[in-house]
């Protein structure tokens, strides 16, 4: 067929069910798209074509035998931070060289149970630490809309392969914006579920109290479909929550009648790129036309969210990454004389500079004498930020906001100044700290031709609401259907 790679997941499911194509054909088209494009984009770290084809043929055979499954034979790309049995799982780091996952993450197991196959591993900032995918030990991924620009991060590989039609959909993980921001930069749809909605078991931990697995897709309906499969409590993750898993596909309607949408005045401030603001304002107008009432809300602690995030996340990371010591798995440095040297050399050679920076920062904020001033205080501020949202959701059903203050920037532009890079997360980090859900949908382009993302935030376990807003918006716009020229070329 030649262009099955451009399908959405739901279209692919329909094709497969109607016998319009086979899983093997789908995978073949993905492999050719990758061959054509990924030399430039570098979205995948690994893709075992033969194995992917074998699994696709297996799914096709299963279908002939009468097996059904919501995702039978659907190929998915997976961020390099999720454990998939038998696959490498390097988290964009040298320190996990040689590690092969001995088990499936719960989200993977649930998708697999519905017949999904996992065809490739996508690039990322090392251990999720970064906003541009430039912190990958294996080189940066490039933005399909402009290869001189970053794809965002840390799930930059996942966003890029979806945007460039090298995948139907991908899994990412979001700790402070790592699904939403690359989705915005690459012009695809990204969902960060509420904390506890999707099991974290098998997701390599960066900041345990913030991490969530989320889908990066071509539209909101696909995000709803994948969330529906992955969501729900898991006995292997004590932080997963019993809260009702709703019918997310059914939530995806086409109007916003009766909905109240909040605009946080604290998000429309200096530093917001005018082209981004214009696109967001236009999207808000469109929501109004779809029947929503728009009200102003206040999130007064927004300005302290970044420092709070960098204390909480790095503190947890300093402990979470302690296990990478060269003793049991992964990379071990040569030439160590004793166990302390094994640790020191392995970690010095195995981790990149941003990871080291955050481990040191996290160790510092937890250390004796500083613990109360930093960590304890950050937890208190976190409570205030959570309350900001609780208060806001008393007067609105969902919040509309930009995903990031700017569109994608050029590679190298912010690498020299980590603080500038951190500030780019200002609109995504508060929702992470509050544990609420957030959706990023394409809502326009800058004059330079780079995508802009609209963020829809909902209360904890209010995924149905954000999906409803995103879906209605997408049904009346076509931003999400636009494809970068690069991808169009590759589709030949």
């Amino acid at each position, binding site marked *: 067929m030649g262009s099955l790679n451009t399908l959405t997941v739901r279209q692919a499911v329909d094709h497969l069910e109607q016998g319009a194509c086979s899983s093997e054909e789908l995978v073949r088209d993905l492999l050719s798209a990758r061959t054509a494009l990924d030399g430039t984009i570098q979205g995948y770290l690994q893709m075992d074509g033969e194995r992917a084809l074998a699994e696709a043929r297996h799914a096709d055979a299963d279908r002939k035998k009468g097996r059904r499954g919501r995702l039978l034979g659907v190929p998915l790309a997976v961020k390099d931070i*999720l*454990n998939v049995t038998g696959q490498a*799982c390097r*988290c964009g780091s040298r320190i*996990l060289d040689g*590690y092969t*996952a*001995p*088990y499936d*993450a719960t989200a993977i197991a649930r998708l697999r149970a519905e017949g999904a196959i996992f065809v490739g591993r996508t690039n990322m900032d090392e251990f999720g630490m970064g906003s541009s995918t430039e912190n990958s030990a294996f080189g940066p991924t490039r933005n399909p809309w402009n290869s001189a620009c970053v794809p965002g991060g840390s799930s930059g590989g996942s966003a890029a392969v979806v945007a460039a039609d090298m995948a139907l959909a991908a899994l990412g993980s979001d700790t402070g914006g790592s699904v939403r921001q690359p989705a915005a930069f690459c012009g695809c749809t990204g969902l960060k579920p509420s904390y506890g909605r999707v099991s*974290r*078991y*098998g*997701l*390599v*931990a960066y900041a*345990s*109290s913030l991490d969530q697995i989320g889908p990066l897709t071509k539209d909101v309906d696909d995000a709803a479909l994948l969330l529906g499969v992955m969501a729900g409590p898991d*006995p*292997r*993750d*004590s*932080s997963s929550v019993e809260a009702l898993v709703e019918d997310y596909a059914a939530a995806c309607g086409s109007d916003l009648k009766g909905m109240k949408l909040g605009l946080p005045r604290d998000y429309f401030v200096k530093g917001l790129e005018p082209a981004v603001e214009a696109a967001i304002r236009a999207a808000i107008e469109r929501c109004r036309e779809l029947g929503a009432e728009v009200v102003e809300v206040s999130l007064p602690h927004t300005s302290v969210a970044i420092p709070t995030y960098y204390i909480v996340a790095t*503190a*947890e990371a*300093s*402990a979470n990454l*302690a*296990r*990478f*010591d060269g*003793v*049991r*798995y992964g990379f071990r440095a040569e030439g160590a004389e004793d*166990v302390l040297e094994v*640790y020191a050399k392995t970690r010095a050679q195995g981790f990149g500079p941003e990871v080291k920076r955050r481990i040191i920062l996290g*160790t510092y904020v*937890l*250390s*004796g004498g500083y*613990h109360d001033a930093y*960590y304890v205080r950050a937890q208190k501020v976190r409570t205030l930020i959570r309350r900001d949202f609780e208060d806001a959701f008393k007067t609105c059903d969902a919040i509309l906001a930009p995903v990031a203050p700017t569109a994608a920037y050029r590679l190298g532009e912010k690498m020299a100044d980590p603080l500038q890079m951190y500030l780019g997360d200002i609109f995504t980090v508060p929702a992470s700290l509050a544990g609420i859900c957030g959706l990023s949908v394409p809502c326009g382009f800058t004059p330079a031709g780079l995508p802009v993302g609209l963020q829809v935030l909902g209360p904890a376990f209010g995924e149905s609401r954000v999906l409803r807003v995103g879906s209605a918006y997408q049904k009346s716009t076509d931003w999400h259907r636009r494809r970068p020229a690069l991808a169009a070329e590759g589709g030949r």
Partner: protein
Amino acid sequence: MKYLTTIGLEVHVQLKTRSKMFCGCPTGPGAPPNTQVCPVCLGYPGTLPVMNGEAIRLTVMTGLMLGCAISPYSKFDRKNYFYPDMPKNYQISQFDKPLCLGGSVEIDAGGGAVKAVRLTRIHLEEDVGKCIHQARRSGVDFNRAGVPLMEIVTEPDMETPDEAFAFLLALKQMLLYLGVSDCNLEEGNLRCDVNCSVRPEGQAELGTKVEIKNMNTFKGVHVALQYELDRQLEAVRTGERIVQETRRWEPEAGATAPMRSKEQAHDYRYFPEPDLMPVVLPPAQVEAWRAALPELPRQKRERFAAQYGIPEYDARVLAAQKAVADYFDEAARGASNPKLISNWVMTEMLRRLAEREMDIRDCKVTPAALRELAALAEIQAINSNTAKEVFAILFEQGGDPAAVVRERGWGQNSDGDAIGALADRVIAENAKSADDYRRGKEAALKFLIGQVMRLSQGKANPQMATEKLVQRLGRPGGTG
């Protein structure tokens, strides 16, 4: 000047759960290295801990038994430090919200005095693996990593190595009573860190604290404390400053040696474990567990005295160890004279067990057999010396006492006619002694009884022999 010594203990107890604290791996000892492991207890990337509810229950039951306050809200924390035996390079422990607070353990303070040693807290944490050092390389066995450990921390309430030893014995006894741990010292089920200090008499605040880490025998604690307190006393007498430090006991040298000073102490950077939810214990749950507490030594003591009519002292000895108490309880239940059972257990049984360093649970004399043996002696089917011999045989071989007596022809002769005939013969053969008795010489009767016993090869019922002799000699001798 006189000096006071102060001792506190931190005891780590391996809980008797079927699976580890955060995964489903088994906890049994003796498996080949790294065969009781999984991605969770090896700290593989992406894995998460899931709390073993049984470990919580056992810790709370221990707290209830020792009179602790049970925290309605408690949480787990990460204790950060690098060591090869630690799969995650942090240990999941409890920092500021332990499961149990306060409580005490009564110890025998010598001379029959009882002293209460107060507890600070009891918390739950995971064990680490074990480093195995070979000639040119080292390995780690993670079978023990993630096994639940309960840490019991005392106040500095003990004053002598003897008291510390008594505390450990008393604690072990209580833990065995509750069945929360096997308390097997060889397998490292009970390990402790010892804190001690000295100060001049009259000084209120404690002296500089020295910690001795990782003791795994009670005797070791005793000798290490003796050494360390002597060292400290010697130091203060000669004006040397004692530094706050951690030391290790070196059994070969018979001395403690410095490990690290306060300046080198770890900064564990505790913070709440984000992967586990806080433990919230509703009062109804705690009360249900309290109601399920087994009978404890003190209650057992009181019941034994009341139910079996045995003296207070006997009841205390029998109730001291759960296994002995259970044995006695079973043997005494349905016995016509429980006091006799108590005598057997407290004398013959405990003596022989001590000689062999045996556990009563491994004893071949079943409670039913002991009850039968006591009954045989009571109805005088055998005399008391024979009974002891039968016990000795049962102790070695087990079996049924009546069968032992029958097989060896040891039954006591209570046939009146036969014993009467023997009495006649003895009086005829010992006319002088018979006359002596008639003249009031009491000792002569004992001699005559002895002769009847000799002729019967010891089987004659001594009381019946006495009766028959007195009947025949005409008048009672002596005043009895």
